[in-house]
Structure formats: C-alpha cells, structure tokens
C-alpha cells in the first residue's frame, strides 16, 4: 500500500504550477498516470523514487514512512528499493547486458536471478553485447530485466514504450503484464497510449495542471458515455473514406484493421489519428470453435 500526499511548485511551459498529488495505491495494482505533457506525471514518479524533493507532504509505503516533511524524514533513493525504468532506459554504456544486470543485483542476493531474467526476456544471445549495439526494443528489454534483478516491490515506468514501433510495443506490453503478475509488483506507468493503458492497467489517474482530476478503471475514464453493450474495443482512426452516402472508417484495434460503416454526423468530429471506441449495442456475437 502506497500513500502519497505531495506538494511541489514546478516551473512549466505555462508558468508556475502547483503539483498536488493525493492518492492511495494498493499493493499489486497496475496504475497508470495519464495526462498531457507538463502536468507533473514524471515529477510524481521522481518524488516517489526520492530523485526529486517535494516542497511538503508525506509518502508511506507498507506502513513505513519514506517522507514526512513535518518530521524531517526523507529516506534516500538508495534505501527505497524501487525499480525505475527511465524513458531513455539509462543502461550503463560501459557495461555489457549481463554486467548491467549484475550491477543491479543487491548484495548477498542469489545470482541465479540474472540468468533467469536473461532467459525470461530472451536476452541470451545479446548478453555480452554493449547497450549501444542494441535496438530500441532490445534496450528496453534489458532495462526491464535490470529493474527486476533488484526484486523490487514497486516498479515505476516512465513512458518506457513510447519510442518503439507498434509491433515491438505490443510484445513488450505482454512482457510487462507477465512480470507484473509473476513478481507480484505494484506498478506505476506513465503512458499516453489509451490502447496500452486499457490493456495493462487496473486503474488510471488522470492528471491535469498538477491535480488528479479523474480516478477509475480505464473503461470508465476513456469512455464517456455509459454503454449497455459489453462488446467494445479502443482503436485508432487510420482512414476515412466516402462511399456514396455513407462513410467507411478504418480503425486499428491492437494490430487488427477493422472497417466500420459510419454516418455523416458520426464522422464529422473524427480526424485521422483520433482514439475511438468501437462498440456494439444489442448485438449477439457468434462463436466458432477453431
């Protein structure tokens, strides 16, 4: 259980902003921080990790006080036992893949976890290479493996998949979900990708101008209208074409292309790249055994 109550003045592009985060995160949850750039998502993670100092507030994790500005308690990042995957991966360029993992191993810990994680992340063939010789997706897998070597309770992910192409991103999402469950982590992710958030997280906190303005499960947050049907997917509009009096909208859901027939008034507010919900009401899907 993580209890956050943080205040911090930040300089943002729009001038000074007061970041005020107040929330409870249960152990084992997969929580996503969502919001436009500069609303304080990264600052929140950095304060939780102890890399940035809050102006005032408190952090409690599993009953232990990490930060209490009124009592002048502030545990350094070294003692927080947090694993953090940075946006730029922060792999040590002077060390090979295996050495990167070995460096992260806490003292007196069983070394077998290094080989286990190399196998789990399919890094066996790359283990003696230097990070600079790896592709983005490979570096990301190393960063995730290195974070898990610490056997952390809490995993913080700062837009870890943003720089990767869709196919690799989908694969890494599966890895994330797998390790979150297997290692029983409390995971906090920063992401802009609604599809990714819906797939991974149990809960979304939406930040705006330094405050949490929405808190709920992804479906509640991203689908404004309550729908009676359960058959719904989130996708991205790739193409809109006119055919006589109707429109054909091509939507990418995960990695499947779906063509949806739409009326003029539905298409009016849609642009290429928009996130949409594809849903069906009063509808009976047919199941085939394969």
């Amino acid at each position, binding site marked *: 259980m993580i209890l956050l109550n943080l205040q911090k003045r930040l300089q943002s592009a729009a001038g000074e902003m007061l970041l005020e985060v107040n929330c409870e995160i249960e152990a084992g949850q997969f929580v996503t921080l969502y919001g436009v750039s500069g609303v304080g998502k990264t600052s929140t993670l950095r304060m939780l*990790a102890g*890399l940035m100092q809050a102006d005032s507030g408190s952090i409690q994790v599993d009953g232990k006080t990490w930060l209490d500005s009124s009592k002048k308690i502030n545990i350094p*990042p*070294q*003692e927080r036992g*947090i694993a953090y995957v940075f946006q730029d991966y922060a792999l040590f360029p002077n060390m090979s893949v295996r050495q990167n993992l070995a460096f*992260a191993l806490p003292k007196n810990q069983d070394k077998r976890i290094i080989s286990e994680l190399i196998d789990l992340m399919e890094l066996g063939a790359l283990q003696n290479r230097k990070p600079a010789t790896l592709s983005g997706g490979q570096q990301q897998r190393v960063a995730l493996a290195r974070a898990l070597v610490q056997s952390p309770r809490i995993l913080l992910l700062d837009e870890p998949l943003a720089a990767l192409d869709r196919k690799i991103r989908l694969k890494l999402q599966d890895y994330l979900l797998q390790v979150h469950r297997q290692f029983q982590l409390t995971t906090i992710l920063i992401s802009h990708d609604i599809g990714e958030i819906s797939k991974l997280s149990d809960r979304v906190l939406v930040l705006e101008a330094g405050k949490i303005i929405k808190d709920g499960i992804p479906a509640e947050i991203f689908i404004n209208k309550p729908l009676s049907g359960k058959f719904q997917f989130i996708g991205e509009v790739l193409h809109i074409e006119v055919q006589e009096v109707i429109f054909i909208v091509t939507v990418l859901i995960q990695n499947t292309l779906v063509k949806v027939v739409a009326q003029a008034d539905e298409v009016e507010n849609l642009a290429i790249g928009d996130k949409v919900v594809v849903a069906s009401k009063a509808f009976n899907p047919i199941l085939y055994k394969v």
Partner: protein
Amino acid sequence: MLDWQPLILTFQLAFITTLILLFVAIPLAYWLVHTHSRMKPIIETLVSMPLVLPPTVLGFYFLLAFSPNNAFGAWLDDWLGVRLVFSFTGLVLASVLYSLPFMVHPIQAGLAALPKSLSEAAYLMGKSKLTTLRAVQLPNIRPALITGMVLSFAHTVGEFGVVLMIGGNIPGKTKVASIAIYDEVEALNYGAANVYSLILFALSFCILLLVYMVNGNYFSGNRQL
C-alpha cells in the same frame, strides 16, 4: 654530449603533476557539477585563472608565500621541514595549480554531459555516490579523462615562467628543459638549444595528435564523419 637531465626532470615533473592533478581534479570537478553553492562561480573563476594570468604572476606569489622569510613559508619550514622555493616539491605544487584548469575543465564537461538518469539509476539500485562515480560515471567519460591527462602533461612540459620564478635553475633539481633552452641560448649555444627544442616540439606534437585521434574515434573504427 647532450645533457639529458633537464629532459628527464621535465617528464618526471609532468608525470607526477598529472597524477596528483587526477586525484585533485576528479572531486573538484564532481563538486562543481553537482553543487548549488553560491561559491561555485568564485571557485570556477579561481580554477580558470591560470589560463589568463601570466605565469610569472603565479610564480611571484608562490615565491612570496613559500619564502622562509614569510609567515607561511616559515611555518612550513619549521613544522613540516619542507622548503618549497627552489625545490622540486615546490615545482610540483606550483605545476599542479598552474595546470589545474586543463584537468578540471574536461572532466567537469564530461560529467555534466552524462545523462542524469545514469547516476539516478545507480542510486535506485542502492549504490552510494562513490560507487556510482567509480563504476558508472568515470568509466563513461574516459575520453574526457584522457584529454585532461594529456593536456595537463603537455602543459606542464611547456611551463617556463612559473618554474623560473619559483624553481630557479638548479641542475638536477629544478632545471627543466624549457629553462635549459633559455640557458643554452643565453650562452650562445644554439646547437644544444635546438636539440632540446626539437625534442619538445616533436613530443608535444605527438601528444596532441594522440588526443585528437582518440577523441575523433580514429582508433575504434566507428568514426563519426
């Protein structure tokens, strides 16, 4: 027959100076990169002073400070038994200060250019600042360390004014190559002066060439064009 003593002395001085500078400059550069102290601009200015100041100014104040006739020099003489004027030890100390910016600046620039996330990642792994510096930060600024070492070495070889002021011209103790050249010219011994000069010229050229080649990645085969 050429007297090799001044050349040997020059390289002894440069080697010892570079070694000491390495140990002085790393903590100093680290502090300059990480501090928020108001003293920072003052310390930075002091470190850079030898770049603009005539070496004779530095040498002159050293001479005053270290002279056994003055309080500090007398204290050193009485309590530690070292006399820094006209001695090799004094030369080393003066050279360290004189070449300080040549070691501090590359290391400071190298540390500042490293992504902050590297050291932060190490801290979150429970590593101390010292371990992080030793295992992560320093190995990743190797070109800056090499540049600093080579430039300090070369700059110490090229010293003249400071040495003349504080070291004098004692054969085997403070008579380095640059002084020897001056000496030979004074004695109209142009042949010997030429040999010393040529050796210094060739060595300095090779050393600087090495720096540019290392930093231009000419050796690793993945040169950026």
